[in-house]
């Protein structure tokens, strides 16, 4: 029987029992305690721009249809017929006014309302036997959006998404609101890797330390000019409520010069100045930091980089959003999207797309080497020796719990949260402490839902 106390105290001490990266009991606990409670990203509104558009996405093994109904409202509904449990939608995306179950022909409008129930009167005695009025495909227990990003939580008591994200919303804007129009989201590339889902989330949250080693090859071929060891440690990491990330320190210059340095054309810079707060602009223009990778608890990550995409000295920035979808204790489906500002010039959009493909995603040259490492780690974590080994995740922390690098003051870091310059696993510890809190809290309580049958309360 799994006892959370075997792992959470070690995790809170910055020591990671290696088996948590490949352990079926831990994975079951994550499903019941973490993914049954947390806000999980499903889709972006720009993926379903027209009335009737839908995509099908999952939270763990739970399939949801995310659709735009006739009134333009977005719905996330459990993809399971109320009668015998078929998936009412077996495509990944499309446009539909209705979803009809192929099993017995029950049909549902694209807002989830049941509209067709064959032989309702003859088979059920009409409304008396099965009350279809007001019945709908089970909605996601909670749904909310920020910057067009659609999140759901399986916990109906989940705090509002904005409250959950808290101060991370400040940083999310750099990736998903470079103009008042926001971003368009393309993809996702999907592929499965034999790695535990937490590794990617931890890596993107704060691992500046891996860049010069893991990604040495992309510097050698001139794709990327930044990740040399001595430059990476000049960056800062930050943690803000439910997410955190890494930054690069930019060369001296004005706000405009620094945004141009990473490849943004003047017209996009002007729109950023209109879209971001004084503090958001100061973090770049005054403090000289540019966001790179980031993670939001539990399994959403972002990345912003600026490689060369042609045989010249120019660099082109791109943004990617990705989800580490847990499949099992040793397998993760990566969903990786490319994001670009809706108002960006078409030429910028095309070259930013090229930059993304060269660097991240299923064929990306950064990502290729990351996954090799994570697969190797996961395989090794399966054995009994891994149950003995506590991995050291205490970088940046001294034995008395104090930190090597001081927290940056308000005159050095214009953003909210806690930030520090240099290498350290501060963010990974924040992420894993949140993990430990939920694992310790145990499975979320859920209530059964009955449909169509009157008097179900009396029957209990």
């Amino acid at each position, binding site marked *: 029987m799994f006892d959370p106390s075997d792992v959470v105290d070690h995790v809170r001490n910055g020591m990671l029992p290696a088996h948590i990266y490949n352990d079926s009991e831990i994975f079951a606990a994550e499903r019941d305690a973490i993914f049954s409670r947390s806000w999980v990203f499903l889709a972006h509104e720009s993926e379903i721009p027209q009335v009737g558009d839908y995509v099908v996405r999952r939270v763990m093994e739970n399939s949801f249809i995310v659709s735009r109904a006739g009134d333009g409202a977005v719905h996330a509904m459990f993809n399971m017929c109320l009668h015998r449990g078929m998936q009412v939608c077996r495509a990944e995306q499309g446009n539909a006014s209705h979803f009809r179950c192929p099993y017995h022909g029950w049909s549902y409008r694209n807002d989830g309302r049941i509209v067709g129930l064959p032989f309702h009167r003859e088979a059920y005695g009409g409304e008396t036997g099965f009350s279809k009025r007001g019945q709908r495909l089970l909605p996601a227990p909670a749904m909310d959006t920020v910057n067009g990003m659609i999140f759901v939580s399986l916990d109906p008591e989940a705090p509002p998404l904005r409250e959950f994200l808290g101060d991370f919303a400040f940083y999310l804007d750099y990736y998903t609101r470079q103009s008042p129009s926001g971003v368009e989201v*393309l993809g996702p590339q999907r592929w499965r890797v034999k790695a535990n889902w937490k590794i990617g989330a931890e890596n993107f949250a704060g691992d500046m330390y891996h860049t010069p080693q893991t990604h040495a090859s992309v510097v050698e071929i001139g794709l990327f000019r930044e990740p040399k060891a001595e430059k990476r440690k000049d960056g800062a990491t930050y943690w803000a409520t439910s997410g955190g990330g890494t930054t690069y320190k930019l060369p001296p210059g004005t706000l405009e010069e620094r945004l141009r340095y990473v490849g943004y054309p003047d017209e996009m810079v002007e729109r950023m100045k209109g879209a971001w707060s004084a503090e958001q602009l100061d973090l770049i223009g005054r403090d000289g930091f540019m966001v790179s990778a980031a993670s939001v608890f539990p399994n959403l990550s972002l990345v912003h980089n600026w490689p060369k995409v042609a045989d010249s000295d120019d660099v082109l920035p791109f943004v990617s959003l990705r989800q580490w979808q847990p499949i099992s204790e040793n397998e993760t489906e990566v969903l990786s999207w490319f994001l670009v500002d809706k108002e960006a010039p078409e030429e910028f959009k095309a070259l930013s797309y090229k930059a993304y493909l060269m660097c991240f995603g299923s*064929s990306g040259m950064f990502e290729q080497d990351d996954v090799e490492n994570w697969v190797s780690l996961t395989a090794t974590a399966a054995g009994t020796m891994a149950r003995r080994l506590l991995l050291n995740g205490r970088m940046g922390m001294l034995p008395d719990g104090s930190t090597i690098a001081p927290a940056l003051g308000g005159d050095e870091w214009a953003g909210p949260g806690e930030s520090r310059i240099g290498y350290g696993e501060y963010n990974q510890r924040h992420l894993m402490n949140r993990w430990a809190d939920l694992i310790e809290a145990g499975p979320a309580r859920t209530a059964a839902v009955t449909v169509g049958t009157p008097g179900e309360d009396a029957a209990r």
Partner: protein
Amino acid sequence: MTAHIPVSSADSPLGAHATKAAPVGDPLPFADPVHLAAHQWLVDETYLLDRQELEEWLARMTGDVHYYMPIRVTTSLGTGYDTARRMAHFDEDLYSLQRRVARLRTEHAWTEDPPSRLRHHLSNVRTFATDVPGEILVESAVLLFRSRGDVNEPSLISAGRSDVLRDVGGAWRLARRHIAVDESVLRTQNLAVFL
């Protein structure tokens, strides 16, 4: 209603420069010398890819090559598309392919060190004349078997390909490759390999 929807460079944000050659007529007879040459070209290519002789592989491309592998998505019959809008696994020109090969030649491309054991199984080859002089279109099926390490599960990638070969001074060069991968979700750790 056909389930077959051809891949098109016109769907790529980077495909404007690609040749627009389209097949004309029935497949060439298997005894046709053009078909035989095209078939040999593809077989020879599998050996270059399996042995990771990638500089030689790149030398068989034209300067304006478009190497394009869109993302396949599951859509209902009759939807009219089965690839993701403006997103791909590969959408390459000669420069980006050269960068990928150059990276594999560094001492720090961990994902291919130790190297994968690769076998490109090639079949279903047929050749068409096209509406562009000096260009032929060759369709083929490829099954890539990839084994890494001693006990890792091997991965398979199955795809259909539609290639345009251009006669450049008497030698065939790859001017366009469209790869229709047969899975929506790839079951391989990355595409540090080519199809």
